[in-house]
């Protein structure tokens, strides 16, 4: 029983793993020492560790974003929520509170933002893109209001530890996102939450008719998204020992959405895999790493990124997958076709 579900999960993330391997190999090509990891100053040190470490904000964001997207929503405000959370955490420790208080305060504010989005979407029935656009625009202002427009720096070692510290040599952010990712994935799959969220994303009308409390569930996925964003915001602030309200998490919502899609999740909601999204986040970070390591002039950054992403998406697109399948199947006698037609009866 157990092993079969593990096998199913593995099958689900195989394409993402292959792509990740390919992009990592690209890293290796531009920088042969890429895979070297050493133990230095009591911490693991190496490009691979950087990918895991720098991927933390996107990875954290995409945990919540996956759930939001599964309900057919989208959360554009996560970048701004990161800024708010960072600002709140920084201002709390600057005011002399302990790092625990600061962390809790930031998370609480993040969840509050999530609830706000959730209410707009689930109760007021505003379309998710627009509903979260409001906070995306205003949120950064709120963050700056907290920091009064400055980069609020702090020295609190506890808080700093969250961003640049290590636990048994492993950078804390890595531990945080891996732990949170596994925890959320487990909660969602070990309870019925995952199925109910998917049901809402596929057909909210039917789900409500079946007695699912879609309002509460939708609000809670935005809440989770706000929580993840807040955690990411605290990490980013802790990393540079300062809350940069204007730049923290800027445009990171797009990376998070991209990660979710590269993870093979449909933007139209429904079936989702958090694990695959996390791998998607690592893929994006590896692409960034290629760009940095290649030493190309920065003018080319975006073009390179765009081309790699397009390549990844094309390989992943249903049509290409289908074509590959046909090629493979034509070698065998009886074609049992994948569900291409499936598309036609959706909507």
């Amino acid at each position, binding site marked *: 029983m157990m092993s079969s579900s593990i096998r199913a999960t593995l099958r689900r993330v195989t394409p993402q793993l292959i792509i990740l391997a390919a992009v990592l190999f690209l890293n290796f090509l531009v920088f042969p020492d890429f895979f070297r990891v050493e133990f230095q100053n009591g911490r693991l040190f190496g490009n691979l560790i950087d990918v895991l470490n720098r991927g933390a904000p996107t990875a954290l964001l995409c945990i919540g974003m996956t759930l939001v997207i599964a309900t057919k929503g989208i959360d554009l405000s996560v970048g701004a929520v990161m800024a708010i959370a960072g600002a709140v955490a920084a201002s709390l420790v600057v005011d002399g509170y302990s790092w625990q208080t600061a962390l809790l305060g930031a998370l609480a504010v993040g969840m509050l933002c999530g609830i706000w989005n959730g209410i707009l979407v689930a109760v007021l029935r505003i379309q998710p893109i627009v509903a979260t656009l409001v906070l995306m625009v205003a949120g950064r202002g709120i963050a700056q209001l907290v920091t009064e427009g400055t980069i609020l720096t702090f020295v609190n070692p506890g808080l700093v530890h969250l961003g640049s510290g290590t636990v048994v040599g492993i950078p804390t952010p890595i531990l945080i996102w891996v732990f949170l990712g596994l925890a959320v994935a487990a909660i969602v799959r070990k309870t019925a939450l995952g199925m109910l969220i998917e049901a809402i994303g596929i057909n909210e009308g039917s789900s409500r008719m079946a007695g699912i409390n879609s309002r509460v569930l939708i609000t809670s996925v935005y809440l989770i998204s706000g929580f993840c964003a807040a955690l990411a915001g605290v990490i980013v602030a802790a990393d540079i020992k300062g809350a940069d309200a204007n730049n923290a998490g800027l445009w990171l919502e797009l990376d998070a959405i991209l990660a979710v899609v590269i993870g093979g999740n449909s933007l139209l909601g429904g079936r989702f895999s958090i694990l695959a999204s996390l791998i998607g986040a690592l893929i994006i970070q590896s692409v960034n790493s290629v760009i940095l390591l290649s030493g190309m002039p920065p003018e080319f950054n975006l073009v390179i990124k765009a081309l790699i992403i397009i390549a990844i998406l094309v390989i992943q697109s249903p049509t290409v997958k289908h074509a590959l399948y046909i090629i493979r199947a034509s070698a065998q006698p009886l074609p049992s076709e994948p569900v291409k037609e499936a598309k036609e009866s*959706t909507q």
Partner: protein
Amino acid sequence: MASDLSPVLECRGISKFFPGAIALDAVDLALYPGEVHALLGENGAGKSTLIKCLTGAYRRDGGSIILENEEISPQSTQDSQKFGIGTVYQEVNLLPNMTVAENLFLGRQPTRRGLISQKRMLEMSRELLAEFGLSIDPSEPLSTYSVAIQQVVAIARAVELSGKVLILDEPTASLDRDEVELLFSVIEKLKARGLAIVFITHFLDQVFEISDRATVLRNGRLIGTRTLANTTQTEIITLMLGRQLEDRIQDRAPAETGDTLLEIRNLGRRGMIEPFDLTIRKGEVVGLAGLLGSGRTETANLIFGAVQADQGEVLLEGQKIALRSPREAVSQRFAMCPEDRKSDGIVGDLSVRENIVLALQARQGWFRPLPKSKVNELAEAYVKALDIRLASLDMPIRLLSGGNQQKALLARWLATNPSFLILDEPTRGIDVGAHAEIIALIERLREDGMALLVASSELEELVAYSNRVIVLRDRQQVSELKGDEITTTNIVRAIADDPLAEAV
């Protein structure tokens, strides 16, 4: 008839494979000009699939299509429309966001100087709809009209598109007698014009009324084609099911029933349904009859909390209860199979298994997941009990045939073990075999003490299982028939506001 002519459209050896299922296995079909050809078979026999392969909506995996002696290979519905094949697919496939007129003329709008002429389009729409006995405003969005009206619009559109062949996949499933009559008169006209018409339905009476020949499919295989003039219903049923349908002795539902379960007082919502009173007892089936738009669906929705009432109250076993949402209704052990299974019923991408346990799980709450073994047990039990045909419990429910989806939905609600079950058109799109089973099931549930409220357009069916029948007209309850009063004739009279109705 007409066999001396050559067929307009001929399919030879059409095959279609799905993962885990062979939907069509070398099926042949020949359509002659001026004939109505019924395509029959159980739920999941492959009728809709054949249509979709024929019209290019699906890519077929084998076989050829010959139109007027020329081999054609439509790649899309657009192609087949160009070839003069008009189709109404099983689920209404129109655009709810566009107006009725726009739906009717999409792709072939009347133009003046290269621009679409709205005025002409509206005029033409009115004329067209008048032929089908509809006098609705074609400039309103389609979504403002009921499923039935949408169905008629879809038919009207397909009729306009069909130069040679018209295909109707269960067009009458949500239609009333009057509409059916109208539709048949249109079909007769088209037939006279020399069109070949494919007619899919589960109503055998209608088949014999209008069709010339019938082709029967079973499990994706062609069983045979018969000229109906010299065939009996029993023979057709036997062909379809591969067995005899045993005649059940219909015992009239007893007038005596249990204690009062539900008491509805003055429940209503302005602009939707007039306030009404209704009492339902344990072990009682209350039927709702009425014409299209008479408010049966609205009544059901109101009682289930899917639509909020703006007045009145509901008492469950004497206790006042709140019904602000389906969730609250479900927690009171209510259950409802909605009329529009595509938009309010199935959760398409979830597996059949998940769809079956969905309502039960929703009632339990997300943090108390049903154990895997329990889920499997439930799903398997209901698949067996209701004879749901599927390749695997893991397949997405939207891949099931229409009738099997309906059964799966029924399973979803039975799994919650409700004390009060609302069924809105429960047998829509269900084949003869399953139809009988569902009627038997309703009777069994009643005998077990469950209270049921059933809205249906099929009067025979209502007569068969109802203890009482409420007749609705213009969103108002107009009369109530009890015991021996319940006959098809009486219901029809009540609906038609015939003063004689009250007399038995």
